[in-house]
């Protein structure tokens, strides 16, 4: 649904661009392709890694990892799992929901969701290509640390 809106915006802009300046429009499309081709090797690598990861790490395995232990060690484990894995949101949210129904702690789930979204160990090489090592490491470690704060607040609000 949202992607459809993006398509409408992109097509609209492209038509407006074409009506104004055909040469510039051609240039824009070439730049779009170049920017894509630039990152394509990493995209392909990541797509294979996600495939292998999802087939090795079944939802049941992840559930056992983050649903089992409680307390801080449980939170830490959940944070690590979230940081390392690359699970699409449409898999992660229903999984988190069923984990909660099965008695997993809210803070463990919250920290898992948080690091899953903000920290990307597997995609770090790609991030480094654009941001450099230092900025990438800083952003990811800060995101990892703050995920605990987010989780503790969510745990406090939702009882």
């Amino acid at each position: 649904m949202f992607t459809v809106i993006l398509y409408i915006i992109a097509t609209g802009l492209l038509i407006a661009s074409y009506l104004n300046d055909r040469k510039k429009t051609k240039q824009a499309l070439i730049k779009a392709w170049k920017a894509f081709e630039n990152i394509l090797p990493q995209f392909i690598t990541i797509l294979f890694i996600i495939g292998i990861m999802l087939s090795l790490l079944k939802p049941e395995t992840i559930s056992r990892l983050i649903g089992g232990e409680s307390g801080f060690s449980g939170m830490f484990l959940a944070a690590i799992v979230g940081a390392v894995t690359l699970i699409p949101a449409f898999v992660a949210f229903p999984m988190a929901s069923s984990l909660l129904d099965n008695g997993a702690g809210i803070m463990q789930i919250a920290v898992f969701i948080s690091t899953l979204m903000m920290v990307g160990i597997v995609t770090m090489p790609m991030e480094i290509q654009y941001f450099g090592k230092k900025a990438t490491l800083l952003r990811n470690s800060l995101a990892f640390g703050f995920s605990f704060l987010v989780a503790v607040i969510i745990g406090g609000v939702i009882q």
Partner: protein
Amino acid sequence: MKKWVFRYKFAVLMLFVNLGLLIAYPALGRESFLHTRDNTMEMLYIIPPIFMILGLLDVWVPRETMIRLMGERSGIHGKLIGFLMGSMAAGPLYVAFPVAGLLIKKGSKLSNVLIFIGAWSTTKIPLLLFEAGALGWSFMLTRFVVNLFVILLIAGLTEKLLNASDKEDLNKRAQTLST
């Protein structure tokens, strides 16, 4: 040709890993290929409009305009634009990096680009709606509000902790990467 092989070496390596998996554990290997295929299809669906907009931005928006909108002295407006751009996006975080590269190249303030990255990772609107459906509105809203501050903090701290030469290196990367 040699350059091409070098650039794709990890992609080819992962293909062989997956093929190895298919030979050693046929069921697992097959499943892995199917996951990769599904994810590839989804990516191919999401990517065209994002890169089309990226190309058009690159050609039509002059550096001066970008500096005014998201540069060093753009103030709260720059933060807001970064936040809204990231929230209106679609797709996984790693699709955001090339867009971020372009924003840096055009003269955006680093912390504003990091706000864009933060928003793309955690406050994308379609994601929030899905999250509310699965985990409830109070979970989603609490996470959203706390993350507004966390995104600002991460962006501000990351920029503060980088020195001048780090930033210069970052700008150089942006100039060479997005042609």
